[in-house]
């Protein structure tokens, strides 16, 4: 161990540097006064100000948050049902097909999911006249579909670790299966559902490719807006935006980590 640890320590250091140097450099350059994002022109916070005056960014952000919240909620409901199905319903008919369908979105390349859903929406419109236009609704459906897979996996593994006799005991004491789910199962898997919701929310907020496919004219999510800007190269206001993201995520996760740690020590 002792001999090896120098090698391990240096790869650890190198690995974490590799992960964090790009992020740190973005944060530093977000305070760059120069219009040319790559040349240092003195310290300034003006790009943050511009960010909040940019209506396009704010609109895109608002749309993204609405989609993410809706899709995460739907995905949590559907994913929890799917997780229950897989962990507690034994061998129902069509189980193999179902478990294949639920786990596939986890590994499906985004371009395929995006293209296939777009073609679905186009065909649906052709035959049923719905969806009338693509945007909030279609993106939400697309995000729900792939995010519910993540929720299902989390919920299922939580259920697998949970003592099934808790639910049996409740039934034995007179609880009907439907009541037992609300009395016992859901309260006990609530942490997994919350984790699933957060993950679904983040995935939705993060997605560019699928949203680009299934969105229509006029509906632009935040990643779509950012992509349209950075396609042309590095821009200072995106540096500022990225820094805000980094700040929010790091504080959020650090707080979660600290509270978790405290509760574990207690």
């Amino acid at each position: 161990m002792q001999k090896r640890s120098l090698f391990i320590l240096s790869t650890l250091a190198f690995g974490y540097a590799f992960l964090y140097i790009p992020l740190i450099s973005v944060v530093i350059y977000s305070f760059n006064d120069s219009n040319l994002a790559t040349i240092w022109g003195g310290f300034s916070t003006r790009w943050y100000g511009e960010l909040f005056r940019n209506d396009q960014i704010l609109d895109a952000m608002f749309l993204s948050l609405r989609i993410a919240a809706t899709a995460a909620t739907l995905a949590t409901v559907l994913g929890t049902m799917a997780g229950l199905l897989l962990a507690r319903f034994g061998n129902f008919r069509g189980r193999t097909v179902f478990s294949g369908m639920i786990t596939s979105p986890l590994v499906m390349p985004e371009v395929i999911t995006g293209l296939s859903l777009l073609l679905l929406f186009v065909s649906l419109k052709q035959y049923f006249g719905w969806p009338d236009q693509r945007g909030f609704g279609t993106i939400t459906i697309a995000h729900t579909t792939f995010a519910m897979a993540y929720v299902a996996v989390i919920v299922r593994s939580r259920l697998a670790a949970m003592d099934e006799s808790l639910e049996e005991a409740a039934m034995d004491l007179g609880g009907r299966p439907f009541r037992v789910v609300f009395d016992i199962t859901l309260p006990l898997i609530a942490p997994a559902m919350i984790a699933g919701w957060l993950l679904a929310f983040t995935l939705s907020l993060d997605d560019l490719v699928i949203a680009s496919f299934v969105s229509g004219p006029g509906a632009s999510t935040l990643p779509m807006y950012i992509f349209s800007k950075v396609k042309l190269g590095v821009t200072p206001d995106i540096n500022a935006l990225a820094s805000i993201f980094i700040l929010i995520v790091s504080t959020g996760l650090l707080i979660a980590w600290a509270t978790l740690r405290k509760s574990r020590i207690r």
Partner: protein
Amino acid sequence: MTDTANPLIRIAGLSKSFGDFVAVDDIHLDIGRSELFSILGGSGCGKSTLLRMLAGFETPSAGKVEIDGIDVTHLPPYERPVNMMFQSYAVFPHMNVEKNIAYGLRKDRVGKHEIARRVDDMLELVQLGDFRQRKTDQLSGGQLQRVALARALIKRPKVLLLDEPLAALDKKLRERTQFELMNIQDELGITFVVVTHDQEEAMTLSSRIAVMNEGRFLQVGEPKEIYEYPCNRFVANFIGTINTFEGTVASVDPDGISIQCEELGSTLRAVGDYAVAVGQAVGVAVRPEKIFISRSEPEDLYDARLRGIVDDQGYLGNLSLYRVRLESGKMIQVSSQNRRRSSKRFVEWDDEIWISWQPLSAVVLVD
């Protein structure tokens, strides 16, 4: 003991298979009111599946279950007059002690005051009065067990099913809890059906025991009966320790039978009414504590008398155990009470001794 005309539980031809595997194979059993009945067997013998069929968690492949004259075979667990105490106790971790115990009554929409009163009674019964607001992660194993017991008893079930009720407790606690369980059962008069792999537990707790193996009952009877008169080799070996000798029936007379035992080179007597024929291969079984050790040849001519050498001995405090090598080379176990206080051993290693037992102590095993 059992009111055969009017049993509380009547199990008829009950079977359960999972695919090709037959877990429970054509069980017939009547259990009377206020009995403390144990189903005893090793892991995978089908005892838990049988219990789960009584509770309603498994649907039988064949046969039926009646409780108090009502066919419950296809009733779901929440409609049976039966409650269960789970092996893991399954105390709801997100409810406190009081809420756990009240759960069953709340599901039955019992009035608030009635619930409060009965929860109080239960807390008193299991001596958890000071813990009613406790979270379950602040309870010890023994306390959890009592919460589970109170929770299962509060609905005044006709039958309480207990799945390995003491397995999760340490030895000291287990002995104490065992007697508490018996007292509670006595006090409430509820029929208990216990599943256990622990023969000692089954022996002390039960009014009757069923020994189960490979999905079948091998013997059903009172603890004493099962111990003293095991009906076959599996039961004899499963309960306690026993010495078995193989032989063939030499003669049958009104008092008992004589068995020619090749491995001992002598004839053994067994008293009792056995349905055997001359020439049939049988086993003769004798419990270690029924065998006497003596330094000189025993006098009673009816007893079995064999010579041997002390191969090994162990001092257990109340008992001494001996392994004796008979002249034929066979090893047998003998135990004797240490009635007298003495630091000197009664026999030493390699001492030549005699062993003997009464024909009444020998049990004939047919299969």
